[in-house]
């Protein structure tokens, strides 16, 4: 197991390098540092202030390799950026000048408060609905349910958010519509509506996926054997289909776990929750290139972490699978 983990981590090294190269090309080659400086500093920037801005951040170094005689070859923008990211020195915001590490650390908690309950509730609801659909196996209900799922999938997230906020908060006058307080017991009050919307917006796709997954399990030979032995349909479903479907379910679900920390881009911005998703939307509008670049890097690390986690859970859930 340990050998597998180490091998897997080595496999990630070239991918992380590739991601860094990709973001570097995007933020420093496709758009030159001078152009970034002008867009961040705005119209009133003088050549002197642009130069200062570039120098303070070390962006005035040569791009890939330093070929100036008398200077070390590695004193270039790419190599310093690489070194900084590897040591998790994320730099500072282009706009406020605050360290990015601090900004991200601050946004993590509100994001998790929103996404973790939403994740758990939507998992429970969609698994239950999918199992129910497999259980009744009625053509008409099935058709209606799949149609409904496709319809739910086809509504854009922001329409859910706008309609949800409008109907519940403004017409029914029920929830606080905007804002956030992490202190004490007031947080759930602010989070109830965003969590509910997040669950509903993901429901269609999830139910469809899990239904297909459970149906495939239903077609296995051992299910027919169990039914022939006289095991009741409900029992087969709960103790065989559900348990075995769980293995496949884990692979689908675990990969999304690390992303919970990144929050929800649209929901957080709309409800004024100061999470990481909100940080990113603000950075897009500013524009704050440092924040976006660091998010891309951290996001890809989380994706790779998710892959690793999936492998481990897979081995843990299914004893037939051996890693190593």
């Amino acid at each position: 197991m340990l050998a597998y983990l180490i091998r897997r981590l080595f496999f990630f090294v070239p991918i992380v390098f590739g991601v860094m190269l990709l973001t570097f090309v995007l933020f420093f080659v496709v758009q030159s540092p001078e152009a970034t400086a002008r867009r961040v500093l705005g119209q009133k920037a003088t050549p002197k202030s642009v130069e200062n801005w570039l120098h303070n951040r070390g962006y005035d170094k040569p791009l890939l390799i330093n070929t100036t005689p008398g200077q070390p070859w590695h004193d270039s923008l790419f190599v310093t950026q690489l070194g900084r990211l590897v040591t998790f020195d994320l730099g500072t915001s282009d706009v406020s000048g605050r360290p990015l590490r601090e900004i991200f650390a601050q946004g993590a908690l509100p994001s998790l408060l929103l996404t973790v309950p939403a994740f758990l509730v939507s998992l429970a609801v969609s698994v239950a609905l999918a199992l129910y659909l497999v259980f009744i196996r009625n053509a008409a209900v099935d058709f209606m349910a799949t149609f409904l799922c496709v319809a739910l999938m086809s509504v854009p997230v922001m329409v859910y958010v706008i309609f949800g906020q409008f109907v519940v908060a403004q017409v029914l006058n029920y929830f606080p519509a905007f804002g956030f307080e992490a202190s004490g017991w007031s947080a759930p009050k602010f989070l109830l509506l965003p969590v509910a919307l997040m669950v509903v917006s993901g429901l269609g796709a999830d139910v469809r996926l899990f239904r297909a997954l459970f149906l495939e399990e239903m077609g296995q030979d051992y299910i027919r054997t169990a039914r022939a032995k006289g095991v009741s349909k409900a029992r087969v479903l709960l103790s065989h289909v559900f348990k075995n479907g769980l293995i496949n379910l884990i692979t689908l679900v675990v990969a999304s776990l690390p992303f919970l920390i990144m929050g929800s881009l649209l929901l957080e911005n709309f409800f004024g929750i100061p999470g990481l998703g909100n940080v990113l939307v603000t950075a897009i509008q500013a524009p704050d290139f440092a924040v976006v670049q660091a998010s891309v890097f951290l996001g890809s690390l989380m994706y790779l972490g998710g892959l690793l986690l999936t492998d481990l859970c897979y081995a843990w859930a299914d004893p037939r699978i051996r890693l190593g």
Partner: protein
Amino acid sequence: MKWLDQIWVQNLCLLAGYGLLARLVVWGLRSERWQTAWKHLRRDKLGLVSLCVIGLYLVVGTLESIVLPSASGSVTLLQRLTAGIPQEKSYSAPLATTALSVADPKPLLGRHVLGTDALGRDTLVQTLRATRSALWIGGLTSLIYIPLGVLLGLMAGYYRRWVDDAVQYVYSTVAAVPEILMLVAILMVLGKGLGSMAIALGITGWVGMARLIRGETLRQVERPYIAAAKALGQSDWRILTRHLLPNVMHLVLIKFVLGFSGLVLAEAVLSYLGVGAPVGTASWGTMIDASRSELSREPLVWWNLTASSCALFLMVLALNLFGDSLQRAFDPKRGA
């Protein structure tokens, strides 16, 4: 890019797009597998209805894409057709006779079925015009990501060894960056516009296609017909294009239709985030974005949001349902 604004360039692009589509349909209908699928599809009522809805959107989008010369430069055919609808000063409710202003409700110049927006433009016309953005984003992106994904997927599955390793490395790297972050990053650097949106969506979109085609190619390569073609001494390129490509083409079609709905949704989300359609281009995303503040107005302005989100929803729904029908038609056993 000045030359892109030329009237004949825009019309030629449209014509070329339709030519390509017609060529593909003619090519597909000659294959036996596609004919069987069409027989299945003809009995699928829901699939046919959604195909008709998609056709309607295509007609509207085409009307808005045909550019005619006019006194003030150029207008689209749809603009010319709806020129009789007067422009008001500002908001007005659906079918209202007076402007939406409590203090000073002036009489309107005409009736508007779905009301007017902040600039007094007819909401129904704006919603129809926005179809063009959605279709162009979907079409342009598909032109980028489908050839790229299919070619790389076929090559990885056929040559295997280092080609496969290289393709897998590249798509693992691209996939490692969360899609929305990647899109936002690319669009921040390239700037707003339909073209840069298509490029950004194309860069992130080919990964899924390449994975799908690679997997199917790995299966197809084991089939006897490939061994036969090799034994006959056919070149690799000929095997790839004449033997393998037709056998994975139905997957490309299904992925194209289902992917198209994703692209339309992505266009709306990106426009909403402020990195999408440029100012002055009608798009559902920008309409929805604009309606955020309209819901807190007094009296309430609900028709812009309702019209744009319904149009968007119906299009995505039709594409998703038609994609599912295609899947069932090509693979009747599994898609039940």
